[in-house]
């Protein structure tokens, strides 16, 4: 029986408290983040919340110079970010997660990107990105 329950509100409420929640399938053990009510691996809806912690493994770095811009649609979406600090995109995963994801990664610059790339994979801390709509999103920040 599908259990009708809030998924999005608890997820975003927890982000305000500095917690990143995913969902773990009670039937096959697959973990989905951000949370979804259906297991993406086996199709079960028997999923429970799991605290993913605030540390992720960064597997790859995708660095883009957004000032070049092939066309106007390729500007980044950061107009909705309260902080205008530049970021790049990374591929990462949570130690407790079972899938890689794309996320924002702060602290990568033209100067340090080659050095950081040579250190992959490395651990990074969650960065709770304040969005202008009054909620937070999850990114990561390179450790100093």
């Amino acid at each position, binding site marked *: 029986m599908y259990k009708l329950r809030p998924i999005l509100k608890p997820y975003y409420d927890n982000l305000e408290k500095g917690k990143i929640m995913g969902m773990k399938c009670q039937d096959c053990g697959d973990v989905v983040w951000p949370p979804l009510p259906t297991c993406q691996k086996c199709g079960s809806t028997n999923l429970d919340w799991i605290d993913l912690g605030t540390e992720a493994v960064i597997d790859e770095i995708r660095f883009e110079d957004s000032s070049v811009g*092939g066309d106007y649609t390729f500007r980044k979406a950061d107009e*909705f970010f309260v902080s205008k600090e530049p970021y790049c995109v990374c591929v990462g995963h949570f130690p407790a997660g079972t899938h890689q994801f794309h996320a924002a990664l702060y602290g990568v610059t033209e100067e340090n990107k080659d050095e950081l790339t040579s250190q992959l994979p490395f651990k990074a801390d969650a960065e709770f990105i304040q969005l202008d709509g009054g909620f937070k*999103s999850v990114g990561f920040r390179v450790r100093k």
Partner: protein
Amino acid sequence: MLKQKFARPVSIIGTSSLPQRSFDDPEYKDLSIYELWAAACNQAMQDAGIKPKDVDKLVYSQMANFVTMGNVMSPVGSLEEWAGLAGKPVTHIEQACAGGYLAFNEAVNSVASGKYDIVMCAGLETPKHFNARNQPAYMLQPIQKYDGWWSPGRALFDTAYNRFDGVSDNLLTEEQGKYYIKHYGIDEKTLDDTYNAMAINLRYNASHNPRALERTPYSEIAKKAGYDDVMAYMRSDNNPKITQYIRKSGSVLHNVEAGAIIVCSADIAKKYQDHPITVIDHASVSNTQRYPFCFHQMNVDVRDALYGGQDNFNPDDLDLMITTVMTSGEQLDSAEVFGYLPEGKGYKYELEGRTRFDADRPINPHGGDLSFGHGFGCAGINMLSEAIMQMRGTAGGSQVPKPVNDVLVRGMGGGHTTVGILLENQD
């Protein structure tokens, strides 16, 4: 001969052939999207030798109608009126840049089901301009002035809820470059040269095609900038890198588009068209960019679905591949995944110019999205129109100089949907 897969066989009997232009082009002076739409629909009907009364149903594709057409929600009624189809059934498809291909598939399905005999699929899109909600459609404004124009991360790539906003086409299609280097052991410089050669090849094609948006060959552009060696120009700051792999020349060009195609039940096709084209099969998958390498995986999944329906299908037998190329990596990845170029060796074909329209493995003879142009929800219609003209031998200056009987059209939209369509000349 390929095996057509529909319960009732379907043929293509008509297509439009409008050029790819911008509203800033003098050729399109004083026009709005409505005139272009009417022209495209009428071209297709004239090509098929039918009148609006003969069309049983319309399937129309547009992605950004709310944004670009004065905040109208699905303008199906007025579009039908402009095409002379008022009172007919119409279905609107919005699935980003995959919409045009899916509109075609839905038109095919509508005939294949036996419900309708003649169906038009059509698209329109104005990526660079919009109409204010308090002004008529010919009063165009640059899209940059639209407050709230879609932002790639939010509106397109994150359709379920606000996950992460930073995704861009460039970054995610560049994973195809990453994938290529990792699996096939070529170095970054060779990949850069491959992508530059691809841009040169596509522009070469477009320079022979008056319908293309950008028609000046890169060799000419390079000369004007003081370079005798076109590759030196392509590697220079005149063609800056947007991402680690993608240069400006490897990123899609947007333009206003309208297009239309007519399909009908195969048993009546000859009545309308001397040269009907058989629709063999179509397949599509959708996915999300939450997981890395989604673009590549969608190609794999569509290939398996499409080729799986054929016995002993050999992609070497394809005469032509037409494929979306939002950024350079997409053409190479899709051509290899679909077996049109040999896996891990396709880069050599680009470097040696073998993908040009007049060479042995032509891809995107019209110039592709990098030179022919691209108009979101209409793009798929015009990619299919190019396939139709190539198969008839009427594609003009960029006509592939050999019989074009078996064609794979592969399209992608929004980073979430990939489509494959097989067409064959069986008559």
